[in-house]
């Protein structure tokens, strides 16, 4: 029953929960979703997905993970494994809806800086900083640093040349470094946007 996860599952390590889930124990997998659902949804939002879209993709990713749970050998974290599934699933969705074409461009215009505005008290705001990146830069940085894909894996998933992905990541990192540096452009950007 929903919300009545047995205590024994709540006390188990992720790998143990995966072992239970591999035997078809769906409540054990539910506990894994409870633990890591926010991280996966958060990553998808950081990749640029809208809230409802991120939730849909995350749900599908977890269902896929349950189907393929026997493939998870405990090398790396469960959250990292599901994040990679979710990131690839989101890219497939973008490809299906033909929203990936624009990411091949090297000179993509960034979104307006005004979207940085958020909680004025937050000293370091990754989400806000990511919004200053262009969609391709944001996607590439999130895939490499959020989902843990290598540049080559990201290039393959995005169906882009490796060099293009590397330059998106490089430019994205430069912007993030400027934004996230102590006393950096986050505050300046906010001041600049009122």
């Amino acid at each position: 029953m929903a919300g009545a996860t047995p205590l024994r599952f709540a006390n188990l390590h992720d790998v143990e929960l995966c072992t239970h889930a591999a035997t078809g124990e769906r409540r054990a997998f539910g506990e894994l979703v409870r633990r890591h659902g926010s991280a996966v949804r958060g990553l998808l939002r950081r990749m640029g997905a809208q809230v409802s879209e991120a939730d849909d993709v995350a749900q599908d990713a977890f269902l896929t993970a349950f189907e393929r749970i026997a493939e998870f050998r405990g090398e790396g974290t469960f959250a990292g494994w599901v994040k990679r599934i979710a990131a690839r699933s989101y890219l497939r969705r973008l490809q299906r809806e033909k929203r990936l074409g624009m990411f091949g461009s090297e000179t993509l215009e960034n979104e307006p800086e005004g979207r940085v505005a958020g909680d004025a008290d937050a000293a370091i705001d990754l989400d806000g900083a990511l919004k200053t990146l262009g969609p391709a830069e944001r996607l590439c940085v999130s895939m490499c640093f959020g989902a843990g894909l290598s540049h080559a894996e990201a290039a393959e998933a995005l169906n882009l040349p490796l060099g293009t992905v590397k330059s998106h990541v490089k430019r994205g990192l430069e912007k993030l470094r400027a934004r996230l540096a102590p006393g950096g452009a986050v505050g300046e950007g906010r001041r600049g946007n009122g």
Partner: protein
Amino acid sequence: MAEIEFERRLERLFAEAPELSDAGPFADRVERRLNTGWQTRRWLIGAAGVAGGVIGASQLIMSNVFQRLENAGDSARVLQQGISQITPHEGWLSGFADGGAVVWVASALAIVAMGFALTRVIEEL
């Protein structure tokens, strides 16, 4: 700031995703979908089993299998008599009432074996 240091910091920031307020309901939705999929799969397997059983039973009836079993029983009886003539002092087949019983026991064992195999297949699915 060194480049590698910044990249590590960025990885940490990505890993430190805030807990969303609807994390519980989200997990419940996923679990519900898992359960729905599981139930659907069980119904499909069950329906396939029933359909297979009906087809199998109809084929058995259509092929006069019971008549053949009786014939096989007669053959087994003849075989048992032959064996008892060859080994008159050994009563190892006397435990069976007649050859027909042997056939029915063998059929029952075959059905149990098929049931076991089917159960394993369903578990694997």
